[in-house]
């Protein structure tokens, strides 16, 4: 029996506008580009909603109505949901409609689509809790499965997610860890007891997400029938095929004219032709199947690039410096208790910012360039670095305001205290005067000296 488990990632970052050193101290709005460039968040959201979210949602709702066996799962970043609320409530409604069918599972992730787990466990927990609350508020459900930003994963994270009460966690079926093992089973991290790890079948997933429209691919054109045959082949040597991909595959990465919507329209019917196939959500998979072995990820893996590691976000010294500077502010930011400072600092954690600074493939001009709204990684870094300056400036300002307020309170207290004080005896008063005169003389002579 082969269960098909679809999970779609839905995320849009708050891209930073062209923010220059001259803006520091003057302009505290970092994400409000209104130009025609691809750093205009509202423009991008509308564009992707039109090309992908709305038509894809419509199609999936249609499929859910047509096939009672069909199931899917989404993971929405918090910053994406926030942008839907502000820019496109209509799109939000169409997602809510899907979740209401009861056959669409919502997963948890970090609210800000961040790499917080690598830098601050405390911040990580704060963001996961924020996300859980947001999902509960918008969809009325509480996720049982966790997926970390860009499928960044290691053993420690699995254990940590188990501690937070999740039943399953998603990861990349990375060859260098799987070895001869198949991604089509459930696994367990060596240090975990209960939580199960679901692994992305990257070959089959990427056939849809990346290769679908590639005419140089020997399997092009990919039909639903052909794809269903590949899934059928798993029968007997696998239990669940995890098809994990960006939701933007539909209509945005693969444009409508590639036939991606028609492919998806036909796929569930083709898959269900085989009597042993069915659909599961990640939490159902975890409930139904046992872990067959260990998946031992000592160091971090992810679903990005051929390296399947962290190098897309953290390979050059700009990226490391930027993220280091950001998390160095954590204590002060949270201590400021200033909502807008905390909010902006959090939005600056979104992994995309560091992805835009990646120089790995910059020269070759492949996907990194395609997904980079800035002309160069350097431009991305400079805007980010300037924003951090402004944020520091705001933190300092907030601190001063606080100490100022404290002082004011202190003065008020003193005044009332003085009023209540009994008159000081004359002898003592004289002594105080003498002392203070001496002090004044001392400081004066010092000044002259200088």
């Amino acid at each position, binding site marked *: 029996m082969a269960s098909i488990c679809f999970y779609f990632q839905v995320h849009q970052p708050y891209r930073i506008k062209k923010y*220059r*050193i*001259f803006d520091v101290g003057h302009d505290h709005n970092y994400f409000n580009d209104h130009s025609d460039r691809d750093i205009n968040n509202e423009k991008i959201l509308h564009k992707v909603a039109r090309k992908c979210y709305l038509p894809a949602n419509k199609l999936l709702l249609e499929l859910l109505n047509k096939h009672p066996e069909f199931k899917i799962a989404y993971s929405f970043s918090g910053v994406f949901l926030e942008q839907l609320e502000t820019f496109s409530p209509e799109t939000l409604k169409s997602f809510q409609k899907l979740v209401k069918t009861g056959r669409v599972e919502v997963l948890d992730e970090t609210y800000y689509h961040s790499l917080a787990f690598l830098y601050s466990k405390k911040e990580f927990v704060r963001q996961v809790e924020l996300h859980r609350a947001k999902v509960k508020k918008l969809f009325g459900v509480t996720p049982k499965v966790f997926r970390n930003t860009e499928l960044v994963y290691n053993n420690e994270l699995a254990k940590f997610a188990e501690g937070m009460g999740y039943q399953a966690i998603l990861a990349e079926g990375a060859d260098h860890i799987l070895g001869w093992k198949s991604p089509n089973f459930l696994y367990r991290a060596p240090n975990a007891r209960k939580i199960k790890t679901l692994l992305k079948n990257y070959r089959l997933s990427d056939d849809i997400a990346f290769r679908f429209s590639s005419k140089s691919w020997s399997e092009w054109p990919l039909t639903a029938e052909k794809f269903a045959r590949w899934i059928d082949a798993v029968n007997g040597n696998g239990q669940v095929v995890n098809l994990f991909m960006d939701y933007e595959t539909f209509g945005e990465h693969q444009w409508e004219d590639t036939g991606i919507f028609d492919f998806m329209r036909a796929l569930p019917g083709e898959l269900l032709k085989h009597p042993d196939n069915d659909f599961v959500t990640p939490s159902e998979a975890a409930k139904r199947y046992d872990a067959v072995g260990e998946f031992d990820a000592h160091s971090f893996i992810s679903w990005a690039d051929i390296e399947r590691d962290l190098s897309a976000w953290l390979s*050059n*010294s*700009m*990226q*490391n*410096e*930027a993220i280091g500077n950001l998390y160095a502010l954590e204590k002060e930011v949270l201590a400021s208790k200033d909502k807008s400072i905390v909010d902006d600092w959090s939005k600056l954690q979104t992994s995309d910012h560091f992805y835009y600074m990646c*120089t790995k493939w*910059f*020269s070759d001009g492949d996907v990194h360039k395609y997904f980079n709204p800035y002309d*160069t*990684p*350097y431009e991305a*870094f*400079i805007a980010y*670095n*300037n924003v951090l300056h402004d944020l520091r400036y705001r933190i300092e300002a907030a601190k001063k305001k606080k100490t100022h307020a404290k002082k004011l309170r202190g003065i008020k207290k003193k005044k009332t205290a003085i009023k209540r004080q009994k008159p000081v005896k004359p002898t003592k008063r004289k002594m105080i005067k003498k002392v203070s005169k001496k002090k004044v003389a001392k400081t004066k002579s010092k000044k002259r000296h200088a």
Partner: protein
Amino acid sequence: MKNIRVLMFGWEFPPHNSGGLGTACYGLSKSLSRANVSVIFVLPKKLDGFDHDFLKIIFANIRNIKFREMQTLIHPYITPDVYDEYLRTAPEHELYGLNLFDEVRRYGLQARNIAREEAHDVIHAHDWLSFRAGIEARRVSGKPLIVHVHATEFDRTGGHPNQYIYDEERRGLHAADCIVAVSQHTKNVIVEHYGIRQHKVVVVHNGIDHAEHRKALPQALTHIRAKGKKIVLFVGRLTIQKGPDYFVRVAKRVLEFEPNTLFVISGSGDMEHQIIRQAADLGLGEQIVFAGFVRDEELMKLYRAADLYVMTSVSEPFGLTALESLANGTPILVSKQSGVSEVLTHALKSDFWDIDDMADKIVNVLESKGLHETLAELGAKDVEHVTWESAAGKCADIYRNHLA
């Protein structure tokens, strides 16, 4: 493969050059001579001050180059005014033209003799001063003429060309069988301003001799660096083309944010006094240093001492100094109006007139170690692919295409 004989009309070589053209002629012919091409290099020879033996020394180990000299007062970057100045001091017994243009004509006529004496398969002339020589040589031998454009009158004058020079350039470009442009930027100028069809112009980017820039050298400006000062460097002739005035304005803007910065201007030219005055007027006497014309190891030391090299050229056909800076491990900010920006990925790029954009980038490089490191490291790797071997290979292909 058949050995090709090139009759090349070129210019001064290092260490006697005053700019990139000499470096380019030198680098290109050295690499050509290793690519089964023999070069007969025709060099203008000023009567006084030219070291004859030098050429033999520098090319002692390269068999494929032969030198011919022609007596003339012209040299690259010469202007009609400068020529008149020369003429006044030239020895009387020598025959020179009445003015620069007359001299260019005379140089061309001399080229006929050389073309008659030296057997060759193809003619290659560098920049407008030698175009006429190329045309005259072809008149004698009937061999294909390739003209190589390192700069046009539009670049040199910031868009206000001298009509005579423009006409000379135009004549050479139209007469040529093929035009080599040092960048797409230059090709565009040629097509747009000289009425040349696209397909006649081939882009061959300049290269750099990497070995020369790997020498171990003592550190320069250590006393300044020891004080924690950052250094921003400008290298180029102080002429309208190089935009030194923009560099001074950028310096002013950067100093508002990074007061502990020293701006070093290396080079000389007709704008020198203007630039010094401008710096003084802006109150930057302390923060801008004029190093004068610097070359070779001294220049390499300057590159290495700097935190960032900035090229503010208004119109830069190529910009070899940017490559040199990267080869010496110092990151660069170059104007988008430059040929070198086409071949480099890991470089900061701005419009030459966008003072704020340049200042923003410079301030960030000065204060972020991560940005500086990434640019320096990847920029140095970037420049490794830019070689004279590759340029010479492309030129050899052009020769072969025109011989077939």
